[in-house]
């Protein structure tokens, strides 16, 4: 197992390097001069030139690239062009918010989605199944921002139960502020999870070894939980993994609607302000997050499926 993890980590290194390279050169190809962006269109050519010199923009590209790599290895992403704050600090203050939102919404998503998926599969083609499927289809079809606005309308304005914005103070305050956005995201996620769990379980439920389990005298409940559910989890786990990566790289819409600081809002602001160092920092962090989550998903596969388990 440890060998497998180490091998996976070694494979991750070239992937990360390649992505960082693409990020670096991609941003350099973009039109627009960061020095001009920083000083504004009115700045004199001399000032721009001086700043370019100071930022190292006049060095050969390859030298800039090597310097960039060295900085990253040391955890230094430079300073924001707008606020002057170090990028690492900005990432560190915003990332926990996103992390918290991502995991709580995955939690709510699984809590709602997987059990409903099971019910839907077990009661196939009955009224409960059809109702669950209609709701799930609705959940997938409604755009997240619209759904977020509805949730705010209902739970913050009509019935002021939850705050509509901000992150709150202290543990309970943070939790309180977290609830509405994470339930919103969780509901959206659960719609997809219901459909995945259902189809994946129906795939397994007719397999011959399920019949074997029944023939052994295993009670129906245990047949469902020990045989069907566990074996149908692989596609579900894959999907949860994909969702985690997309949520961690910024649940942009939900963060914007609930005005929560987070990676998504940070990246969007950086793009509008041509704040290259911040954008670079965000992108590198996304890359790392995707790699780590993929590794975790791969490891969890090997717990679920002995065929994938490295010997």
């Amino acid at each position, binding site marked *: 197992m440890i060998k497998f993890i180490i091998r996976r980590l070694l494979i991750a290194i070239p992937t990360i390097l390649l992505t960082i390279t693409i990020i670096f050169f991609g941003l350099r190809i973009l039109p627009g001069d960061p020095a001009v962006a920083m000083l504004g269109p009115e700045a004199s050519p001399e000032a721009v030139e001086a700043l370019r010199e100071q930022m190292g923009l006049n060095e050969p590209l390859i030298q800039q690239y090597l310097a960039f790599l060295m900085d990253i290895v040391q955890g230094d992403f430079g300073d924001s062009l707008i606020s002057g704050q170090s990028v690492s600090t900005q990432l560190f203050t915003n990332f926990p918010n996103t992390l918290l939102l991502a995991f709580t919404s995955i939690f709510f998503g699984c809590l709602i989605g997987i059990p409903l998926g099971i019910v839907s599969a077990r009661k196939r083609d009955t009224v409960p199944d059809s109702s669950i499927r209609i709701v799930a289809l609705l959940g997938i079809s409604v755009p997240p921002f619209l759904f977020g606005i509805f949730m705010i309308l209902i739970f913050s304005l009509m019935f002021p139960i939850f705050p509509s914005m901000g992150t709150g103070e202290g543990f309970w305050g943070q939790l309180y502020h977290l609830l509405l956005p994470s339930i919103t995201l969780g509901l959206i996620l659960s719609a997809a999870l219901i459909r995945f769990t259902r189809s994946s379980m129906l795939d397994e439920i007719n397999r011959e*070894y399920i*019949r074997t389990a029944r023939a052994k005298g*295993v009670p129906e409940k245990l047949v469902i939980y020990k045989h069907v559910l566990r074996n149908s989890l692989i596609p579900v786990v894959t999907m949860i993994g994909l969702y985690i990566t997309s949520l961690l790289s910024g649940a942009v819409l939900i963060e914007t609607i609930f005005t929560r600081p987070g990676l998504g809002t940070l990246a969007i602001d950086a793009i509008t302000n041509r704040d290259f160092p911040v954008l670079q920092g965000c992108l590198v962090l996304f890359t790392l997050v995707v790699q780590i989550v993929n590794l975790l998903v791969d490891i969890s596969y090997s717990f679920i499926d*002995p065929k994938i388990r490295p010997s």
Partner: protein
Amino acid sequence: MAQNDMNNTLLKVKDLKKHYPIKKGILGGEIGAIKAVDGVSFEVKRGETFSIVGESGCGKTTTGMCLNNLIEPTSGEIYFNDKQVSFRQKKDFQEVRKNMQVIFQDPYSSLNPKHSIQRIISEPLVINKMGTKSEIEDRVQSLIRLVGLDSYHLNRYPHELSGGQKQRVGIARALALNPDLIICDEPVSALDVSIQSQILNLFEELQEKFNLTYIFISHDLSVVEHISDRVAVMYLGKIVEQGTREEIFNDPKHPYTQALLSSVPVAKPKSKNNRTRIVLEGDPPSPQNPPSGCHFHERCPVKIEACKKAYPDMREVNNLHKVACHLVSENLSITTQ
């Protein structure tokens, strides 16, 4: 095999039916039914091997699966160990399943790919709380050796075993609960011929050792001839003939049985007692819409007028040998050859 127990009935099946409704339209109105099993009756004595043969789709597997409610029968009565089994009562059929294990056709797909062999064999013991952890472990160890595997196989997963080994695991699993009856649903048809004979010998050894009763479902007549005490021949959801192995194989009465037997490849095709091949025309009719009268009459080479009108009753040729054919009822000679 266990001759002294021959009069002891273990399983009695009376008029077992399984009809699959065919639904159509938005409201799912029933427009008919596929009669997979249509009024099957037989008895199985303790310690014998009772085979059910027939071509694909004749309902032999469905019959087997109905016996312990893996497929819920539409109607019919089943008596197991002199007790009627109610399939609406969960407790009832769970109890029956304990004593009536099944070995499935395809060893590749009938073992849970994500469970170790240890877990597969021990699961019935754990579920039914048959002893402490160490007792169960000992039992699993002895079971795996009983079927000719080694204890190191217990830590393997199904995909790490060959087809024959998997079927041995299937047998060990079926034996775990010391069942009275084992339903073998084509247990060797997915295996190589060389492995088939090994597994069949294992079946015989185990039967002698534990006085097991087998219901052996197969389409392979040479296998059936090798292993059975009594044989039932099914056609389109009904048993058309049943009798002892000798009666069925040496003196088949029903034209369908005769045709079926004539299709078995013979080891020495040029020998004198070679049977003439009877080639049936057409395909078996749909069980949704079986022909009037005797279901076999459209393909029967010796049909008479009565065959088109009414389904023949089961007639006793002698004590154990029964045939559903008008020609037998009317004492006409049925020789298709």
